[in-house]
């Protein structure tokens, strides 16, 4: 079986669940309806042999609706086949059914998605933060969260502060200049390189 066979099998069984099929450089992605995510995953695991969930990741399309997208990377150990499943999540609901009962590895991946993007997973056995600490009030990988962070404090446990960016984040551009020109102390994306002096820190 290859990825095309798997896609065809899924399309035959779940025609109404699949919103879009995309191929890019030999990699197949299926966009699914949120309601049928678990059924499709269960079928892919039990009938099509996708016994390994490589990764669960999330994308923030800030400004679009639905805002979030969660991506599941499936792999079949026996056939060596990859398959990518995507599903959209709206900002209002911000919730998806868990697949951690199908692939136990999804447990921590979903915790990471919850921690950094703020998407909750329904019926997850242990939905705690995994990288930030309990009580941290933000979800730092969202596009509207600033890179330098926000101050927060959980008394007796942890705190965070705003990092001094000093005019950064710094952007290097390809140029044949010296290191000073290539990597100035501070330069915003788009501003042209200054030839022979440092830019003052703001």
């Amino acid at each position, binding site marked *: 079986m290859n990825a095309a066979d798997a896609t065809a099998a899924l399309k035959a069984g779940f025609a109404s669940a699949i919103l879009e099929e995309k191929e890019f450089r030999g990699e197949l992605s299926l966009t699914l309806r949120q309601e049928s995510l678990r059924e499709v995953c269960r079928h892919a695991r039990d009938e099509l042999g996708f016994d390994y969930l490589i990764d669960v990741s999330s994308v923030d399309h800030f400004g679009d609706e639905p805002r979030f997208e969660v991506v599941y990377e499936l792999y079949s150990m026996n056939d060596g086949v990859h398959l990518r499943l995507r599903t959209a999540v709206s900002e209002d609901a911000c919730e998806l059914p868990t697949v951690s009962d199908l692939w136990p590895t999804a447990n921590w991946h979903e915790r990471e998605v919850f921690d950094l993007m703020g998407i909750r997973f329904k019926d997850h056995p242990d939905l705690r933060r995994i*990288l*930030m*600490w309990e009580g941290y009030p933000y979800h*730092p990988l969202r596009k509207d969260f600033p*890179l*330098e*962070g926000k101050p927060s404090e959980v008394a007796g446990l*942890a705190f965070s502060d705003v*990092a*001094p960016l000093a005019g950064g984040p710094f952007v290097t551009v390809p140029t044949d200049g010296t290191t000073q020109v290539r990597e100035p102390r501070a330069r915003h994306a788009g501003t042209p390189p200054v030839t022979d002096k440092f830019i003052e820190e703001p």
Partner: protein
Amino acid sequence: MSDQSPIAYDSKIEGNIIITKLDAAVNWMRSNSLWPMPMGLACCAIELMAASSSRFDISRFGAEVMRFSPRQSDVMIVAGTVTYKMALAVKRIWDQMPEPKWCIAMGACASSGGMYRSYAVLQGIDHLIPVDVYISGCPPRPEALLDGLMSLQKKIMGEHSVLEQKKALLESL
């Protein structure tokens, strides 16, 4: 007796007796057997390991006994990026170290956050614990660590712990 030479040797007494001050003797012993608590958090830890290996050999300065128990260590070498999540563990281990204790911030990240200007990274371990010696570099070479260690030894040689205890005792009476 100068701070540079902690002991006075009188050749007429043939080496059986050495005259010194208690502070100087204590400092001499402390500074020449600094047991490090290796707080290796990132790539600086690799240089820390190199410093303790044969080519650089940190044992020449009496600091080869890397203790993984904070209760047996004298100097915490914070080597690497301190994330906020790790920072509290670093602080806890620091609190478990017995006095007297010193801290070396090794490398750009431990000193100032380095290139990690981000929500996840503590901008310098001195926000949490007092630092005696900062070592620049990303990562610093083992020679830089040895130089930092020698600076710390010099600093320890200038301490007056017994004298200060005496003063505090006299003031309390």
